[in-house]
Structure formats: C-alpha cells, structure tokens
C-alpha cells in the first residue's frame, strides 16, 4: 500500500502577525510546529504500512523551513518526503493549496492519501476534500477508525508483509473500510482506492519521534518541488494568483460590555452574586 500523508507546518504560538498589505498571516520568524492533527494522519499511515507493507510519503507545501515537518516525519518512520516550496505558492487559499497538492500528487503513485481533519491555523478542514475533488477520487472526512486487519486483510486477501504492489483501485479491487464521525452519527463505508481520508484525533495515538531513527535518517534528503515541476506549470494557477478568495481587511475582535469588578470577602461576594443570578438566571 503506497500512502501519501498531507502534513502542514503551523505556527507554534497563537499570537501571530498579519501582513497588512496582502492580508495573509506572517509566518516568517514565528516558532513553528507540525499541525497536531497531521501527526495522527502520519500515525495512521505508518500503522497501515506496518500491516500491509508499502511506503509512506509525506507531502507538504510551505516555506523552506517547513522541511522540519518532513524531518520529524522521517524520525517517526516515513520513507520519503516532498516539500512544495516556491515563491509562487505564497498566499494560497484553500482552493490554490488543494490544487498545488493535487498537482504534485499527479506525478506520484499512491493508493491512499491521508490528511489531518483540519489545521490549527487555517482551521477550515477544506484542503483534504479539495485535493480529492481535484484528483476526482472519493474522500471520507472525520475518519475516527480505520478498520484494521479484518477489513483490509479481507480486501487484500493475499497481501504478504513484504508485498507493496497492491492493485491500485479504480477498478474497485482494492478497498478500505473506515468509520467517520459526523457528530450525531457514525457512518461506516467501504471505499475503493485510490481515495483520500481525513482523520480525527480519535483514530490513534501518534508515536513519538525515535532518536535512533532520527540519527539513521539524518542525511536522507527532502525532495523539493516547485511550480515548474508541476504538470500545470503556469505560475498563475498557484498562490495568491490562483486563489479565489481575497482577504480584504483584518481587524481585532471587538466587544463592548458593561463591566464591573468586585473584590471583597467571599461571603459578601457570594451574596452579591446570588442577587445578580436571581435576576439573570432563567429557570
């Protein structure tokens, strides 16, 4: 099973600046980390690989420093990492991001794509389904369980540990069985490969990076792809130029309230509070 994991670098703190000109988040110089949901996506991929063989490739779009995401993935067990980095990719909305990722995927072979449920900065949950649509493959969002051996072994039957060349779906021969958490309903579906899923934190517990692996892979390269390497190479498809949305204005949230601060003895405060509660609390 050849799996591609979509992973993104996100700011490590919740106080980031905004570029007043482009209206996009200023990411340079901000401490960064791997989007926590994407670690669950990677774990899901590694667990599948351990069971079925194959490769795990990490695909990330971002500035050069986003290489750190791929390094972290290497030290957890990913085989290959590709960073999509180009000035032309800057300022992408979810449409342009999904397009860029799908273009890179068109140059690769894969059975399954796994994304995080959402990112902690964009927070849209849109990129995964968008990639699936660009590739015209099915997707399932909010997967909380990948039915492990039973479902997969039943599907793959004869797959041995070493075998990697699973039949690529499309002809409906290879399938994955997953349960999605749609809030008040859990839906279990069987999906032909190739397909894309996005996973929630309930799916698994990501492993920790291994020191041994980190050393072993320290000289493994991170592959770089730029706009010119994509099947659709015109720069106007990417970044801000390829985006359909424009941020027009950024401003701090406002709130105007009547405010009172009380200090004093606990008992006296409690009595005052009780008076307010009797007034406002609806019973």
């Amino acid at each position, binding site marked *: 099973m050849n799996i591609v994991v979509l992973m993104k670098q996100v700011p490590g703190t919740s106080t980031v600046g905004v570029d007043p000109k482009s209206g996009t988040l200023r990411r340079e110089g901000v401490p960064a980390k791997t989007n926590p949901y994407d670690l669950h996506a990677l774990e899901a991929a590694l667990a599948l690989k351990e069971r079925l063989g194959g490769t795990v490739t990490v695909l990330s779009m971002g500035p050069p420093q986003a290489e750190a995401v791929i390094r972290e993935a290497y030290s957890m067990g990913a085989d290959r990492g590709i960073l999509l980095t180009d000035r032309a990719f800057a300022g992408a909305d979810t449409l342009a991001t999904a397009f860029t990722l799908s273009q890179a995927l068109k140059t690769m072979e894969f059975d399954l794509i796994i994304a995080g449920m959402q990112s902690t900065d964009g927070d*849209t949950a849109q990129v995964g389904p968008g990639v699936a649509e660009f590739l015209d493959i099915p997707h399932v969002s909010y997967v909380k369980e990948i039915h492990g051996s039973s479902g997969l072994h039943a599907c793959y039957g004869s797959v041995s540990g070493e075998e990697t060349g699973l039949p690529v779906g499309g002809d409906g021969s290879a399938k994955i069985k997953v349960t999605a*958490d749609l809030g008040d309903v859990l839906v279990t579906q069987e*999906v032909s490969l190739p397909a894309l899923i996005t996973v929630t934190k309930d799916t698994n517990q990501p492993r920790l990076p291994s020191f041994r692996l980190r050393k072993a892979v320290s000289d493994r390269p991170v592959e770089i792809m730029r706009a010119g390497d994509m099947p659709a190479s015109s720069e106007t498809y990417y970044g801000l130029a390829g985006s*359909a949305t424009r941020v027009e204005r950024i401003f701090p949230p406002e709130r105007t309230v009547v405010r*009172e601060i009380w200090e004093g003895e606990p008992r006296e405060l409690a009595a005052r509070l009780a008076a307010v509660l009797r007034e406002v609390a609806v019973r």
Partner: protein
Amino acid sequence: MRERERDWAGWSGIMVFAEFHHPATPDTPDGEFDPVTYELIGKARELADKTGQEVTCVVLGSGVTEPAKELLYYPVDRVLVYDRPELRHYVAGVYAAFFHDAIVAEKPSVVLMGATPVGRSLAPRIAVRFRTGLTADCTVLDIRPNGDLVQTRPAFGGNIMATILTKDARPQMATVRYKVMPRAERAERPGAGRLFRREITEPAALASLARHLKAVAVRSEERVPKAESISEAKVIVAVGRGVKSEKDLEMFEVLAERLGGMLGGSRPLVEKGWIPPSKQVGQSGRTVRPDLYIALGISGAIQHVAGITGGTVIAINSDRTAPIFEFANYGIVGDIYEIVPELLKVL
C-alpha cells in the same frame, strides 16, 4: 490569471443547503433538518432582500419530499428537492454530484452551508468543482449592492477577524457556524415559497455520480445518542484549570443544576479527561450562546472566549490580571473554592 472578470450576469440568488438528518430507523416517521438550516435561511433572506434576489433551499435525501414541506413555513422562495434512495446516507461524492446539478441549474450568486461535519466535507468538493472561493466558519455575512458577499470569520483562533471576498468567481460559497446567526421565524402557515422536485440531469454531475456510487458503499450507520448539547444551554457553568481535582467537579455540577444549566469547561480539562470534548467551549470546541455564562477558574484565553457569543458573563478568578476580566460583565476577584460554597448556601 485564472479566468477572471467573467460576466456574473446569469448568476443570481442565495442558495441554502438544507441539511437533512434521516430518521434513525426506517420506521420512525420523520427525520429533521439540522438546526443551522433555519439560521441560514434567516441570513439568506436578509441578504436577498437587500439586493433583490431570491432564496432557494436545496434538500438532498431519501423520502425527503414530505419533510421538505416544513421549509415552506420559512421565508424562502423555492425549495428544490432531490429525493433519491442513493441519498439515504451521506457520501461526499454522491451528495456533491446532486449539489453540483442544483448549482448548474440555478446559477446562484451565493451558496450558504452549515459548518457541520457534512457541510465541511461537502462544501470544499463543490468549491473545487466550480473553481470558486469558500470561506469557512463565517460569523458575520453582509452583501454589497453589486452582489459581493462580505464574509467575516475569526482567523487564527479568534485573535483576529478577517473579512474575505470572492470577487472573481461564482458562486460565492461560505460555511456558517451554528448558533452565531439568528434563526428565521416559522410562520403559522406556509408562505409564498414553492417546492419543486428535481432529477439530476447535468451530464458532468451524472458522470461523477456514477463513479462515486461505484466507489463507495455505506455498510452501517450508527446513531450516537444525542447528548444534551451545550450549544443549546441557557445557563452554562464553565470550569477551567482553577479546578484542582476531578472530584471537585461535583460542587460545580451542583451549582449548574441549581441554576438549571449545564457544566462546560476549557480545553485543559478536556485534555485531562475530566469533562467530555462535547462540553468544551471555544474555538476548537463549541460555540455557545447562553443567557448566562459563569466562568470559574478560567483565564479567558482568546481561544476560549471566542466560543462565547452572547449573554451575561460572570467570572470568578483569583488573579486580578486574568484576561477573562476584560471580557466578563461581572468580574469577581476571589477563590472559587471560597465563593462557590458560600454561594450554594444562599442560592
């Protein structure tokens, strides 16, 4: 450039995706629309009236023609129903094909969907199909005389608000968070709106429908018992890291009960496993709009208060400089372990 400055003349109207939840078992008579639907209708009507456009609801499901008539009690112009057995379960690609057909048929200028799990899964597929913009989790929507939808959403955990436009593509798509917009009123009898049943006819939509029907099979569907939702609570007692141990929660639970409300909390308590994720208030939890919100031992991080959208806020915190005091209507500087027991004595 992408295909820009197209002529948007043919694109008009506000389309609402009316998300239908099928009944739990085939023999229970009716399902129901996701409550966000009525909020979307309210907003769509307002935007439509400002610009002289119509409001069209799209309903996808199996056996939905009857239930869809409920929407006619709301201020809509049209209800488009695709009533097909293959829509019994939500399958992204299948739903996308039908919705695609509706958009080709109607050419709406704006498409509004709930930021529900289904909406967030379906909307991006549609946006990509039409190579158009999609703004997630909008909290404020307005419209310009020229038809441009002005979409405002909290960005970066609510630290900043961003106003976003999709000027050069149609339809302009947005998902809207539940409980941030007022619900449309239900009239006593059906209004002027008409209901139409449609079949899928657009060739591209039909082709993708066939592919997805072949690729995906739903094996089972299990309803999760509806826990009382904190989003609906009129009174919320919310606890944070000021609570020292799990057993202390009981005291706050009692307070919530006395006030006829629910216990909620900040993310650290969810991470500790003391309260369930469904009770987390904030940017990555639930948005709430109670009449009364009591924050106990909560510092008031922006990601937490981003989830509180209305009502009177009372905070008790021992740190006078806690940011929650910038947010609360009544800020009480003190120890929750001293004040709450006293309060329970007098309530």
